[in-house]
């Protein structure tokens, strides 16, 4: 630790996680490809798991790390269902972007 230029404190991880979360959130709002939007959601979830691990380390409490396992399982389940839905849509409209999803509006 002493040799490094700056001490890497837990706050760095929290800031990194919040930046990654923000990238994911903004990405989902500005990108139009359903698959990329979906990747942004994954980015957000991973930012949250990083936050959990950091807090777990700071509080010296193992519960935060067990949460990560739950979140991973939930994210995997979401991938299965989400990709299925997106594939079903892209089969009907092979070039669909979020801007094309305008049958429902009003």
């Amino acid at each position: 630790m002493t040799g490094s230029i700056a001490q890497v404190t837990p706050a760095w991880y929290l800031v990194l996680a919040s930046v990654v979360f923000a990238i994911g959130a903004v990405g989902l709002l500005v990108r139009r490809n359903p698959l990329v939007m979906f990747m942004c959601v994954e980015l957000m979830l991973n930012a949250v798991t990083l936050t959990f691990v950091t807090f777990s380390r700071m509080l010296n409490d193992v519960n935060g790390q067990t949460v990560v396992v739950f979140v991973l399982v939930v994210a995997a389940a979401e991938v299965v269902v989400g990709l299925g839905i997106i594939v079903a849509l892209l089969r009907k409209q092979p070039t669909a972007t979020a801007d094309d999803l305008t049958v429902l509006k009003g």
Partner: protein
Amino acid sequence: MLATLGQELSDSPVPIDTIDLAWSGLVPIMILIGGALLILVVDSLVPRQVRPGSYALATVVLAAAGMVASVPLWQQVQDGERGPFSTAASAIAVDGFSVFVTFVILSAVILAALSFDGWLRREEMDGAEPYVLMLLSASGAVVMASANDLIVMFLGLEILSIALYVLAAMHLRKITSQEAGVKYFVLGAFSSAFFLYGIALIYGGTGSTNLVSISDYLSATVLGDSGLVLAGLALLLVGFGFKVAAVPFHFWAPDVYQGAPTPSVAWMASGVKVAAFAGLLRVFYLGFGTYRLDWQPVILVLAVLTMLVGSVLAVVQTDVKRMLAYSSINHAGFILVAVQAATAAGVQAALFYLAAYTFMVAGSFGVIAVVSRKGDIGTSLDDYRGLSRDRPVLAFAFALLLLAQAGVPLTSGFFAKFYVITAAIEAGSSTLAIIAMVTAVISSYVYLRIIVSMYVAGDDAPEPRTIPLPAAAGLALVLSVMVTMSVGVFPGTLASLAEDATPVLVPEPVDPGAVDPSRAPTGP
């Protein structure tokens, strides 16, 4: 090798530490999940020719079994000596609140399953999957309503939502269904991520995700900097706001309600909203009751926006499903008024409203499922013209349910709105109560518009058409109309049940298996 292992096993003196599970509290959830898996297994074993209607029958039987299993739980939590308890290491709370909400959720399952039956056969999509998904979704809803831990609530929310994404995108031949599915999925996952980030920040601020520990910590400590907890609370509210379709997180609701299969919407509008509001009440009213001065104004703003946008935008719609989507947003605003009161009367009003609303909205979407034509089309206002001539009883039932949604006296909707407004005035928010009443008047225009369209056909009335009414869908309608009208005439029973359904924070019993009387459940 094996011998040594065996010796080690027999020598090991320390038994593996397992958490104490009060299985009785988990029976309704286990019935739903076990039943859903059983339907799937049986369906894949027997030849394809299953008697039509057997899936719906199985679903209704399972939901009814869940209700029967909840009755002893209700008696136990109302019993002064035994009282509410928590199970699975304080992760699941069994109190009057969770049992009441379980009943409402299971009623929604029954109504939606009955509505699904005829609809699936008309669309030639009959199969086990929609019922299985709905049962799993309902199990998530029950978990969410009884979660005593934020992570368990998140898991319940995800079990509920993931099954719903499929239910929304289920109609493979209809592009709008897929569009609804993608929109619901992307925004649902987006809101779940916010919800989870909120939990992470609260965990960082309080050192726990358990609502009991959080509440104890917050009331025992004065936080020098409560920014982390407040930010977490705000993010949780975003997550809940998406699920209950509160403005400004409502924009998915009209699209999804219009595009998704109508019986799925019946479940989405009733069961899901009930579960999300139950979770909202549990987290904000119970877990963060000490912070109520911080969150009450935010919920007040949300409630005003939700009621206004829901009622005003409903007026300009021409599609009945979209109209009811906006009207359900308006209903969500009313329930937020009750949440904002943050009193026992507010919780009672919210529970009464949710129970009454479930029957009104599930019945209304049941009518829409019947009136629509093959391909799940024919839901515009014009398609309802002359309905009173083609199907007088159906039109009358729909009119009753719509009048109940408008809050006309002698229906359950009147008392639902009455209790909410009373609770708001008692809590000192008279302005909010006035706004609520004004929006109720605005949205009653929408319901009257549908009723007029059904009863006043005009000169250019469309050709008379035969609308087949499946027996199961008819039964669902009879049930919802009966409950709506009888609660409207005798609201006392439901009101006293809602009063008994107070949520409590149940700490983990110190001695496994025995509840220590000195750590009796505490209210906020």
